[in-house]
């Protein structure tokens, strides 16, 4: 059983996101381990990108901070190695496809396996284009995580059938960022996913409060939080570990009903 599968075994998973290198690699390491100790079941690490078209202002700014700190693709792999020295928490890279393409698909996924990456999410790689790298990723044991959007409709079945690791259900239209209301109709989408696949489905985009998380967890297998975490890092900088711990703990408790 893979680390990702274990994270969803008999429980609702909390998935936390940080942009690697924001504000520094060492701090990213500390924040990842802190989130794990507070109950995070999977960690997404963003590879900072110059033009993150699926991100709202909060994560755009985090990308800029990380790039300003000279974070490059190699340093993200160093971060993964550093985490792996201390933890078995499942690690998923979130990256636009260009940094992966530029690194070379073969070299990139080999490096993922070598350092201990479990999966990869590419917001600009839809179902129709995934075949140019899915086989390579699979040969190195890396799950390419597929996304389902509020507009996916009849595409859900096709996507869910070929999904690996877990399904990332995009909860809202637009870009990442904290929202008061979650627009996706989970009671319509989830049955379609369940009918097509037994793969776990986690919901993200706009989720920030324990109340939202609790509601989502009633239907989904996991809750993904990005911008709300990055906002804590933006606010507290190098001293974010304390507030991050408290936040992740409250979210994890909300989804597990404790």
């Amino acid at each position: 059983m893979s680390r990702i599968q274990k994270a969803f075994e008999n429980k609702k998973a909390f998935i936390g996101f940080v942009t690697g290198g924001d504000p520094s690699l060492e701090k990213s390491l500390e924040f990842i381990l802190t989130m794990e100790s507070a109950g995070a079941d999977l960690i997404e690490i963003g590879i900072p990108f110059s033009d993150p078209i699926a991100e709202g202002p909060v994560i755009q700014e985090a990308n800029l901070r990380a790039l300003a700190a000279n974070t490059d693709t190699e340093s993200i792999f160093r971060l993964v190695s550093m985490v792996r020295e201390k933890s078995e928490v499942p690690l998923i890279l979130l990256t636009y496809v260009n940094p992966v393409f530029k690194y070379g698909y073969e070299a990139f996924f080999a490096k993922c396996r070598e350092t201990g990456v479990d999966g990869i999410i590419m917001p600009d790689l839809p179902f129709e284009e995934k075949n140019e790298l899915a086989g390579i990723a699979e040969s190195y044991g890396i799950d390419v995580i597929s996304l389902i959007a509020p507009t996916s409709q009849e595409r859900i079945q096709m996507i869910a059938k070929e999904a690996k690791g877990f399904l990332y259900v995009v909860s809202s239209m637009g870009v990442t960022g904290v929202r008061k209301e979650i627009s996706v109709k989970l009671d319509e989408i989830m049955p379609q996913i369940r009918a097509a696949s037994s793969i776990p489905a986690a919901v993200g985009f706009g989720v920030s409060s324990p109340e939202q998380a609790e509601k989502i967890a009633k239907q989904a297998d996991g809750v993904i939080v990005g911008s709300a975490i990055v906002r804590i890092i933006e606010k507290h900088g190098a001293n974010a570990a304390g507030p991050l711990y408290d936040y992740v703990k409250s979210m994890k408790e909300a989804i597990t009903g404790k």
Partner: protein
Amino acid sequence: MDNEKKGRFGIHGGQYVPETLMNELILLEQQYEHYKKDPEFIREFETLLKEYAGRPSLLYYAEKMTKDLGGAKIYLKREDLNHTGAHKINNVLGQVLLAKKMGKTRVIAETGAGQHGVATATAAALLGLECEIFMGKEDTIRQALNVYRMELLGATVHSVTSGTQTLKDAVNEAMREWTNRVDDTHYVLGSVMGPHPFPMIVRDFQSVISEEAREQILAKEGKLPNAIIACVGGGSNAIGAFYHFIPDKEVALIGCEAAGHGVDTEKNAATIANGSLGIFHGMKSYFCQNKDGQIAPVYSISAGLDYPGIGPEHANLHDTRRATYVPVTDEEAVCAFEYLARTEGIICAIESAHAVAHARKIAPGMKKDEIIIICLSGRGDKDVAAIARYRGRKIDE
């Protein structure tokens, strides 16, 4: 043609966009394939081009320039004479009409120099759609008059403050807005770039340039030209000017990229000269980027060419060597801008001046019975104040 069906030009093109947009792109392709064969749509579109945009545009023999350079005969394809002053209107009328047929009530667009934004705002005003334009903050300063023009036409202009605050960032923001509100909104992409089907749709709507030019030159000269020269940012006027000449192997197709301060400096936007293969803004093509695939900040005096990529069909024309892409610096473009004004009494867009500059380089070495067609993609009113500043004259717009 099989490749084109999958949205590919050789290895380039594709649909690298968030899942949220996929159904919309599929729908857009279906609707476009339907309407491009619909006699009613064709009639309305052709009427708009003829009665509203002023097509066909002139193919003008630049006799003084020809004599001055002493070589090939030079013709100018006068896209600058179109309504709104550039080739952009050709594509925009097609796309906004298509959007209306699709039941959309709102259009959004990115703009660099402002020409595409003005054209989109114009078509939206005419056809009764709501219009919002995304423009890099840097460009709203460089092209302040165009911002006001768009507002006069009833559009809302969003000043984009992310990234380099230029065309690339305007595209980012327009794509973000499209994922936010796709149901009632069509994204009027302004160049032959982005995800399939945009490079195909924009090229088809712009190909009227070469369709006319081919007929016009055959009528005037009884033979095909030796070279077509056009400026290239994303590459919409260039693909429009090239398209119907692509099968005529004897016609050289030359695209002029913005070399800014020079291809050996940090400050340029010459994608073919300096870029490498990548995936960005929905397409696989050549991009100015670093070793990690971070998109490079690019520079050109011309806001319309200040883009770090090139359309996928151009990338393929480069790979197959059917077209040649050459760098032209700011200084060469400004000199050509001044030269055309003095010699022919035509103030062209600084973008188009890149093509004029290259013609000045090669025409003298060509025979007198050889022919060059320059695509004069736009007029230069918008650039006059900036060129004055470049020459050290302080003129308020």
